[in-house]
């Protein structure tokens, strides 16, 4: 194929692509490109955060109920796991700059390990939601036939037990949530939040319409719908975040291969750098998801009152 050869007059540094004049220009371009891409990602998640904001401002108690259903321990653990993976990612960039291939490879492997741990914990959480009827789609939850459980489990009493105990109870076949059609369901404990808010007088106008029927009586089904919205948003947000993690792991795999082949040096490390930017960005999204989904509203039941 006929080519213009005047670009090959000077020898190309390794990794320099034909459209650039020098490594500096290439480094600038990929950095600006990655940040532009991240600005795009901010807006992508921004749409979800807007949906969260709108519904949280409308139904704060339903969202507080949702937060209380989630297990904050797992969310907290996952935050730590991601922060550690961010550290190892930053270090792998550092060692790439230093040209230390072995430590770089180790750091990439560690990042992948922590990323996988995060996804593993996420899987545990999702499974827990499945067994307890918290998937916001009717029929997608585990079917628990009625009447197979001991009569001694009054629902509210069991549900105040810590998560681990509940899991044990479920494993022992004593799951206290009969759910014959696999529907989304909440427990009495979450309903207490509405009672509490009503007593203290901080139900919003939209909530008064949203949780109560025309006669002003509390309507559990209507309230459940709003908690369901929380879980719908929870699954979309964490699901898309997990998808970004999986993509990140794929990038890490490619980086690992490249690093193993001694590709990166003090002169050429921009792929590590910009992959790191992506990884840190995914971490940042979680830094916000954690308090928004797991923590807000937890004080209503944990604290005084």
């Amino acid at each position, binding site marked *: 194929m006929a080519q213009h050869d005047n670009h090959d007059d000077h020898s190309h540094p390794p990794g320099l692509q034909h459209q650039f004049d020098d*490594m*500096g220009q290439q*480094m600038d371009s990929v*950095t*600006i490109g990655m*940040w*532009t891409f*991240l*600005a795009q990602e*901010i*807006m992508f998640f*921004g*749409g979800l*955060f*807007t949906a969260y*904001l*709108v519904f949280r*401002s*409308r139904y704060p108690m339903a969202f507080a109920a949702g937060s209380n259903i989630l297990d*904050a321990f797992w969310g*907290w653990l996952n*935050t*730590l796991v991601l*922060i*550690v993976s*961010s*550290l190892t*990612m*930053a*270090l792998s*960039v*550092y060692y790439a*700059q230093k040209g230390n291939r072995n430590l770089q490879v180790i750091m990439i492997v560690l990042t992948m390990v922590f990323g996988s741990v995060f996804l593993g914990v996420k899987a545990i959480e999702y499974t827990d939601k499945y067994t307890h009827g918290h998937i916001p789609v009717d029929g997608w939850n585990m079917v628990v036939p009625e009447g197979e459980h001991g009569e001694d489990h009054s629902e509210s009493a069991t549900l105040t037990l810590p998560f681990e105990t509940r899991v044990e109870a479920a494993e022992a076949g004593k799951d206290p949530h009969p759910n014959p059609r696999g529907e989304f369901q909440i427990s009495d404990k979450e309903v207490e939040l509405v009672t509490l808010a009503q007593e203290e007088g*901080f139900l919003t*106008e939209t909530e008064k319409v949203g949780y109560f029927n025309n006669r002003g009586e509390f309507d559990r089904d209507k309230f459940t719908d709003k908690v369901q919205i929380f879980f719908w948003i929870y699954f979309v947000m964490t699901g898309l975040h997990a998808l970004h993690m999986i993509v990140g792991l794929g990038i890490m795999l490619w980086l690992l291969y490249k690093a193993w082949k001694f590709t990166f040096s*003090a*002169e050429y490390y921009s792929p590590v*750098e910009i992959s*790191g*930017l992506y990884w*840190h*960005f995914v*971490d*940042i999204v979680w*830094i*916000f998801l*954690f*308090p*928004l989904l797991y*923590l*807000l*509203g*937890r*004080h*209503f039941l*944990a*604290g*005084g*009152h």
Partner: protein
Amino acid sequence: MSEEQHIGIPGYLAVFAFLFIATIVTYVVALQDLDGMFFPGTNTLVALAIAFVKMTAVVLFFMHVRWQSRLIWLAVVSGFFWMAIMFAYTMQDYLTRSVIGF
């Protein structure tokens, strides 16, 4: 590029330690009834403030924005600015539904 555009191993560890502590703090604080102690919404405010500080630490040091050109700063800021536009102009609808007879 050859000049040191990072904070070195001790710096990275310090940032990590800060993030670690902040994560613990945000968890502990979320269980306290700050709304009751101060004003409604304090819990939310504190949780988001901590998240924001954590994000800033990651952006500045792990993502090396501290050493980047003004252009990169602009990209970061405009990303968040546009998200703020989306929040603000959407919420100006929802929060004023009851203000003028609607």
